[in-house]
C-alpha cells in the first residue's frame, strides 16, 4: 500500500490498533448483553440506549481511579507488567491479513510471528503474579504459565496443518491457498476440520477463557494475577484478554476459514471481519455454556490427548499433501 515500510507499519499500526481496541471495548458490552440473553436477564441497561453508554462509562471510571501499589509489592515490576501485557497483546495484530495486501507487516514467517508474540504475554502475566507479593496472584501466575506453555504445543502443531497444506508460513499465502471456498476447516475433511477445532480450543486455553480460565478462577483465586491491580492497571489486563481472544479468532479465520476470500461472493475486508466476529461470538457462547476445568484435569487433557493428537494431525496432513 505505502512504499516506505516504516510509514506502512506506522499508519496501519495506528489504524488497526485503534479499530481493534474499539472493537475489544465494544465486545465487553456485547458479551455482557449476550450473557444476559443466555441467562434470561437484561444485562446492562442503565447508561444510554440498550446500555451502550456502559463502555464509555467504564472507560472513564478506569481512567480516573487511583492506581494503588501495595506496600509489599515489587514496585518497578508491578508497574511494568500492565504496560508489557497490552503491548504483547497488540503485537500479533501486525501480521494478520485483513484483505489482499492489507496487512501491517507481510512477514514471510507470519504464522510463527503471531504465535510467538501472543505467547510473549506469559512473561508480563508471571511478572505481575510475582511482583504483587500476594498468594492469589502468585498461584494465578503459576497456573497461567503452566497452562500457557502446555497449550502452546498443540496450538503450534494445529497451526502447522494449514502450513503443511498451503506450503507457506505467510498468512497471506495461506489465505490465497484457500481461494474458491476451499477452506482448510472443510477440506481436507479429516486433518483440516480437526485441526480447526483443536486450534480454537487451545486458543481458548491460551487466552485463559472458560473452560480453561483456572488462572483467574474467581471462586478460588479472587482474580488471579490481577487481584492487586486497580484502575487502568487492571484495565490493561482486562483489555489484553479480550484482544488475545480477538486475535485468536482472527488467526482462526485466516488459517482455516479462508480469511478475506468468500469464493463467488467476492473478496474483501468485510468477509475477514465477519468471520473473525463470528468466531469471537462463538467464544462468548462457549464461555457462558461450559464450566471450568480443574487444574490437573486441564494439564492431563493437554498432555494426554491434545499433544499426541495434534502431532498425528500434522502427519495426516503431510500424507494428504504427498498423496494428492
Amino acid at each position, binding site marked *: 500500500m505505502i512504499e516506505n*515500510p516504516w510509514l*506502512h*507499519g506506522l499508519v*496501519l*499500526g495506528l489504524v488497526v*490498533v485503534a479499530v481493534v*481496541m474499539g472493537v475489544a471495548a465494544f465486545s465487553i458490552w456485547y458479551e455482557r448483553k449476550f450473557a444476559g440473553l443466555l441467562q434470561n436477564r437484561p444485562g446492562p441497561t442503565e447508561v444510554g440506549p440498550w446500555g451502550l453508554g456502559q463502555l464509555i462509562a467504564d472507560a472513564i471510571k478506569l*481512567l*480516573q*481511579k*487511583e*492506581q*494503588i*501499589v*501495595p*506496600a*509489599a509489592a515489587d514496585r518497578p515490576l508491578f508497574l511494568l507488567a500492565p*504496560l*508489557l501485557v*497490552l*503491548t504483547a497483546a497488540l*503485537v500479533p495484530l501486525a501480521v494478520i491479513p485483513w484483505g489482499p495486501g492489507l496487512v*501491517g507487516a*507481510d*512477514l*514471510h514467517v507470519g504464522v*510463527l*510471528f503471531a504465535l510467538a508474540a501472543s505467547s510473549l504475554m506469559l512473561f508480563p502475566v508471571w511478572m505481575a503474579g510475582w511482583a504483587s*507479593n*500476594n498468594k492469589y496472584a*502468585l498461584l494465578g501466575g503459576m497456573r497461567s504459565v*503452566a497452562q500457557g506453555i*502446555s497449550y*502452546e*504445543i498443540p496450538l503450534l*502443531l494445529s497451526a*502447522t496443518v494449514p*502450513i*503443511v497444506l498451503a*506450503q*507457506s*508460513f505467510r498468512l497471506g499465502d495461506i489465505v490465497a491457498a484457500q481461494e474458491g471456498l476451499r477452506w482448510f476447516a472443510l477440506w481436507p475433511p479429516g486433518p483440516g476440520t480437526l485441526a480447526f477445532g483443536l486450534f480454537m480450543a487451545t486458543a481458548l486455553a491460551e487466552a485463559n477463557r472458560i473452560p480453561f480460565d483456572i488462572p483467574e478462577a474467581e471462586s478460588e483465586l*479472587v482474580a488471579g494475577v490481577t487481584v492487586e491491580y486497580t*484502575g*487502568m*492497571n487492571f484495565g*490493561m489486563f482486562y483489555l489484553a484478554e479480550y484482544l488475545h481472544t480477538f486475535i485468536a479468532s482472527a488467526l482462526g479465520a485466516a488459517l482455516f476459514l479462508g480469511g478475506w476470500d468468500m469464493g463467488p461472493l467476492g473478496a474483501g475486508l468485510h468477509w475477514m471481519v465477519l468471520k473473525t466476529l463470528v468466531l469471537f461470538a462463538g467464544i462468548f457462547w462457549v464461555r457462558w455454556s461450559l464450566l471450568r476445568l480443574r*487444574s*490437573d484435569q486441564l*494439564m492431563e487433557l493437554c*498432555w494426554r490427548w491434545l*499433544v*499426541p493428537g495434534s*502431532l*498425528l494431525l*500434522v*502427519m495426516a496432513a503431510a*500424507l494428504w*499433501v*504427498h498423496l494428492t
Partner: protein
Amino acid sequence: MDPAWLSAAAFVAVAAVVAAAALVGARVLGVKARVDAPLKTDTYECGEEPDGAAWVRFHPRYYVVALLFVLFDVETVFILPWALNVEGLGGTAIVAMFAFAAILLLGWAYAVRKGALRWQ
C-alpha cells in the same frame, strides 16, 4: 532483509506507545491520595490479615511437564521446516518424519505410563 520487518518494528512501536499512553493518561486523570492509609496498601487476602509473604518456596510439581514442554518444543523446531517443504521433499522425508514422531510418541507413552502427568 525483508522490508516487512521494518513495518513490524513500526507496528510494535505503535503498540508500546498506545499502551504507555493509556497508562500515563490514567496517571494524569486519576485521583491520587495525599497520604496512603496503611490498610489501603496492605496485601489483599479477602479481609484477613496477610499471613506472611507470598515469596516462599513452593513444590515444583509441574517440573516434569516443563521437561516435556522443552522436548516437544524442540520437536516443533524440527517439524516446522519439514512442514514448509513437505510437498517437494517426497516420500523419504515423510517416512523419516513418521519415524521421528514414532520415537517421540514412544517417549511420551513412557512418561504417561510412569505417571509423570498425574497430580500426586
